[in-house]
């Protein structure tokens, strides 16, 4: 029941944001509000088991505040670095690629998805495949460092810095 309410509320907020400026009742017209409410009730009923799987830990607003801080702070900075790095490699053509394995030790699906997306957008790395039993990631690394290869699986600090700690605070 609570899952149904959460899904419906999310759908309704999204609908309202997409139809701003349509009338005189605040920012919306009465028809839009009624139609949005009916549609989000239907969608919430159909999708109630998909969005919320097991528990409600992501409903905690503190996690969302940390998430915003993560996106604006370390994530955006390393994304800018990534693009300057790609620019350097496009111009000079100097690459030294390889596929390495890391084990970030995250347990939830949401956490591993966020880590994989963060790795894809940060300097010189691209996630290729996942070992679904142990949540290990296979990373294509454009500039493999020699000292990182001595230990297998490769230490996380060469690939993604402190990202696993941030994600553990957000999603677990």
């Amino acid at each position, binding site marked *: 029941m609570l899952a149904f309410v959460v899904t419906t509320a999310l759908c309704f907020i999204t609908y309202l944001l997409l139809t*701003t*400026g349509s009338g005189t009742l605040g920012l919306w017209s009465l028809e839009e509000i009624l139609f949005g409410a009916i549609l989000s009730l239907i969608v919430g009923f159909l999708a109630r088991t998909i969005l919320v799987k097991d528990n409600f830990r992501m409903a905690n607003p503190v996690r969302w505040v940390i998430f915003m801080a993560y996106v604006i702070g370390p994530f955006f900075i390393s994304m800018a670095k*990534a693009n300057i790095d790609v620019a350097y490699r*496009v111009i000079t053509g100097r690459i030294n690629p390889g*596929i390495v394995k890391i084990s970030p030790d995250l347990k939830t699906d949401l956490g591993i998805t966020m880590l994989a997306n963060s790795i894809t957008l940060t300097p010189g790395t*691209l996630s290729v495949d996942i070992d679904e039993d142990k949540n290990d990631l296979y990373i*294509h690394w454009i500039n493999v460092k020699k000292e990182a290869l001595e230990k297998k699986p490769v230490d996380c600090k060469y690939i993604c810095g402190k990202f696993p700690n941030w994600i553990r605070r957000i999603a677990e």
Partner: protein
Amino acid sequence: MIFDLIIYILLAIGVFFNLLAGIGLLRFPDVYTRLHAGTKCTTFGSIFLVGAVILIGLKMWYTGATDGSVLAIHSIFVLIAILLTNPTGAHAIARAAHRSGVAPVRAIVDDLQNKTVKKTVKKKEAEK
């Protein structure tokens, strides 16, 4: 005035990184390195281009046109869609490329090689 200057700078940065993505696609030697260029650069460039449009919308809203708020909010939705879908698509293409047998060019290490072989063997056994 200074607002316009910020918008021009954002547009210039966005166009520069999008052009870089095109050049990278032409210059890099194999699929994985091309994905580096095609994903990172277009995502970063699109953030700046869409950010410039959000600023234009906010400025229109500030000067009195209510259309501006709609422009800004819908642009934020586009930004969220790009940020969510682009890395996931790159991930899917990379996995498909490796499973269909494209090896990384000039690679000095490939940890994934053995694992893929194991997986196909398992699949064949399951079919029997």
